């Protein structure tokens, strides 16, 4: 049994693991990334499930990826291209549609024909949310302070945050405080009257949570999704060339160029703790790797409850991690198509196909979809956010053919009776029949189908509970509480063991801040 020596071992080749490894290597460290799958990406993977058709298996759009990471790791040079995904169309049950086009004037004209009041409210709402997001966004780039601590480090971090707060007007502070407590439904009811508009806007408040649009706390999630639209590198949600796997590939290229070693099909069994300190990992195949530090970019449950023996962790920390809510609530249906879906509301090929198609006719529709999930069933009529990647990046499917990515909510991890092939098939059927009501040719067009349940997310991407954010974006699971109180600074109760993934601050959504900030903390501690 050979024991190889590294400066740092990173567990998991998702985007956060790769980013952390690249930052460590950039500081001159000898780094290896260990990935259980035979491919990189974790939940940011693109795979050719059917020959010629490339699926963005899990995550499918990007907006929040931190601009400093793009610069530091020179991702454009390593192949990152973010293509525009400019619009959202919501088909309505009466055969009409609601569209938010790329152009402000067109969008205003479109909303105006449904509700003149909402057309103006939309502009005002966008500005208010943009200002709130602008105020909160700096938080994404900092290590959360521990508010109970009086250490100089935490006080300095608190002071830094205070400076962000000082730039806000009194009104804006109240607005943000209110946002933290409200449901997306209540917030949107204050602003709008047109159901498809409210339904579509509310959807970003529930993504990745096991909550409905009328559950308190969802207004914040909505804001979280807004942040990418402020001063990010793209100012809008976009589609990465080659799918989100293209992002992972660009990061991996950068990491390799910096000297990072990447080992695939290398599942980690245990983190080795010697004398109270993490000193390496044991792989499932029996290999042992030694390192000065180990960082996990897996989900919190796996990182602390599986990789470590409980004896190494204090009780309250263990309890916090056990109670960390990772209820998977969403699934994916990826389709290979022989022709474009034809929507009855906007027949023919057009701008609709180049943007998102949102099945969200009202808040009630989504709340009803949640009702199913609350009692252990997948939604009979789910919320679906569909895009047609092959219309944005022609290399995603054979010429004339297409791929369609359908994000679906709700699909509870803990489904009544447990997930099996029959239930997976029925879940896929619910999605296809929902789409079919608005695009009747969809069934005929399908030449390949991949249905992914939360259970599949867990098995394929290795995320416990199948939650796309490694843990829901609930207020009690954010900032200095993520993943556990007093341990939000990417350190863990085991010296030498760090945690930097979506389950850490600032949460999920292909931001990469987690991996970057964690790596920077590792370097601060380096002796």
């Amino acid at each position: 049994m050979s024991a190889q020596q590294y400066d740092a071992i990173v567990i998991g080749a998702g985007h956060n693991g790769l980013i952390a490894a690249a930052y460590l290597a950039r500081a001159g460290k000898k780094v290896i990334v260990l990935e259980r799958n035979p491919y990189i990406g974790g939940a940011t993977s693109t795979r050719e499930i059917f020959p010629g058709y490339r699926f963005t298996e899990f995550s499918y759009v990007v907006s929040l990826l931190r601009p400093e990471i793009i610069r530091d790791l020179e991702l454009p040079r390593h192949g990152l291209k973010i293509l525009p995904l400019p619009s959202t169309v919501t088909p309505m049950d009466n055969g009409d549609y609601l569209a938010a086009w790329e152009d402000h004037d067109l969008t205003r004209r479109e909303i105006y024909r449904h509700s003149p009041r909402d057309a103006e409210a939309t502009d005002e709402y966008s500005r208010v949310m943009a200002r709130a997001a602008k105020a909160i966004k700096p938080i994404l780039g900092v290590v959360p302070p521990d508010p109970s601590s009086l250490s100089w480090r935490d006080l300095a971090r608190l002071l830094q945050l205070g400076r962000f707060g000082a730039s806000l007007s009194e009104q804006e502070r109240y607005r943000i405080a209110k946002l933290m407590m409200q449901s997306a439904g209540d917030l949107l009811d204050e602003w709008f009257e047109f159901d498809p508009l409210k339904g579509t806007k509310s959807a970003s408040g529930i993504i990745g949570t096991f909550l409905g649009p009328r559950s308190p706390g969802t207004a914040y999630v909505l804001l979280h999704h807004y942040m990418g639209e402020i001063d990010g590198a793209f100012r809008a949600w976009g589609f990465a060339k080659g799918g989100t796997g293209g992002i992972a590939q660009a990061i991996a290229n950068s990491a390799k160029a910096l000297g990072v070693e990447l080992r695939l099909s290398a599942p980690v069994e245990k983190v080795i703790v010697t004398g109270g300190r993490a000193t390496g990992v044991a792989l499932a195949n029996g290999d042992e790797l030694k390192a000065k530090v180990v960082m996990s970019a897996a989900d919190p449950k796996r990182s602390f409850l599986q990789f470590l023996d409980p004896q190494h962790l204090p009780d309250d920390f263990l309890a916090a991690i056990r109670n960390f809510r990772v209820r998977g609530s969403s699934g994916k249906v990826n389709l290979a198509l022989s022709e474009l879906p034809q929507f009855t509301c906007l027949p023919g090929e057009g701008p609709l196909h180049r943007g998102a198609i949102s099945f969200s006719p009202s808040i009630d529709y989504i709340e009803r979809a949640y009702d199913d999930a609350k009692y252990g069933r997948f939604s009979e009529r789910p919320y679906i956010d569909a895009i047609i990647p092959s219309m944005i990046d022609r290399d995603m499917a054979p010429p004339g053919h297409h791929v369609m990515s359908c994000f679906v909510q709700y699909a509870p991890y803990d489904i009544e009776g447990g997930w099996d092939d029959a239930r997976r098939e029925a879940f896929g059927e619910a999605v296809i029949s929902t789409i079919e009501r608005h695009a009747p040719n969809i069934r005929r067009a399908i030449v390949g189908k991949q249905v992914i349940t939360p259970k599949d997310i867990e098995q394929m991407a290795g995320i416990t509970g199948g939650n796309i954010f490694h843990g829901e974006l609930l207020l009690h699971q954010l900032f200095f509480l993520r993943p556990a109180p007093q341990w939000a600074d990417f350190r863990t109760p085991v010296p030498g063991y760090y945690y930097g993934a979506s389950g850490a601050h600032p949460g999920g959504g292909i931001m990469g801040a987690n991996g970057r900030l964690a790596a920077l903390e590792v370097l601060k501690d380096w002796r």
Partner: protein
Amino acid sequence: MNDAPYSLYRLKRTPFHERVAPLCLPQNWRRWAGCITVGSYDLGIDREYWAIRDAAALIDVSPLMKYLVEGPDAARLLDRITPRNIHKMAIGQVFYTGWCDDDGKLLDDGTVTRLGERSFRLTSAEPSLRWLAMNAVGMDVTITEATDRMAALSLQGPKSRAVLNRCCEDGLDTLRFFRMAPNRLGGRSVTISRTGYTGDLGYEIWMDAADALPVWDAIMAAGADHGIVPCGILAMDMARVEAGLFMIDVDYTAANHAWIAGQKSSPYEMGLGWTVNLDKPGYFVGRRALEREHREGSAWRLVGLEVDWEGLERVYAEVGLPPQIPGTAVRGSLPVMRDRQQVGYASTSTWSPILKKYIALVHLERPHFEPGTRVEIEITVEHHRRYAPGTVVALPFYEPEWKKK
């Protein structure tokens, strides 16, 4: 529902589109409030500009936002929203006014026309339905948007009255400045206000969108002997600077669009102090903040800047060039300095063909905004930053004697 898919996936066209599109030689289209409108009809804009100043220029101003405010509380609502005393308006009178948020910062500006005892027309640059509705809570008033169903033309220039007198049923000789009267034109019902955005003699003609083309044809026919010229918004942009008239989101940022407090402007700062009636009774939006500013004085003021021609020549002569001045109004911020310290900025600058001067609308900090103050404006000469001397002047730069006669 829609006739053809994607029939709405384009900018709006004004009711005059059929007429103006074939005349737009350079295909120089501009956006205005979600519509495509003509930037200029000719390959140069001189002829259109001089029609405003010497003959008659016909401008399609249909994209303006238009609202009808009607009912027993119509005057009360407008009196609450604007700083002007609406109760004092006569029927047929037009007020120009800005309106503010409760911090006394400008949200928009436009005109209020009293059509009847209980009915008003409001024009604005930005959509205002929501703001009107929010302020109308508990009032007996109906607010109807008329933006799309009402077309509007602006006929500007010293010959504009003569043109209208040839095609209107009622003569325009008795219509005073900032008054409005119903009329018939080309066999169609219109209302005509003696208003405009050029600082010259001029009228605005308001009509049902369905009557747009016959009205256009009648005015063009009547104007043929008076040198009427269809005029795009670029020539109007030069004229409005000469008239000292500012434009939202160019010369000031609407308070609700601003990212930071420093971007907002008050009516006093924009030289609209004359529209703020602090002696009117009762609350109006922004009253307390405006009272305070009135008491304490404003930090900024919009004024005019006339650039010294000799100074400009000197700066260019250093590199062996005569002065280079853009032929259209320039919407771009230029620093204004005094004793090498920045004391403000220009928001729109233009060559004034009628004054033969390079002029700018400038925002200056107290105390630098007094007329006669000598300042310098930044210009770029052969890719290098230079400063041209100039003098602060009161607005407007240009006001012909016939404007109000």
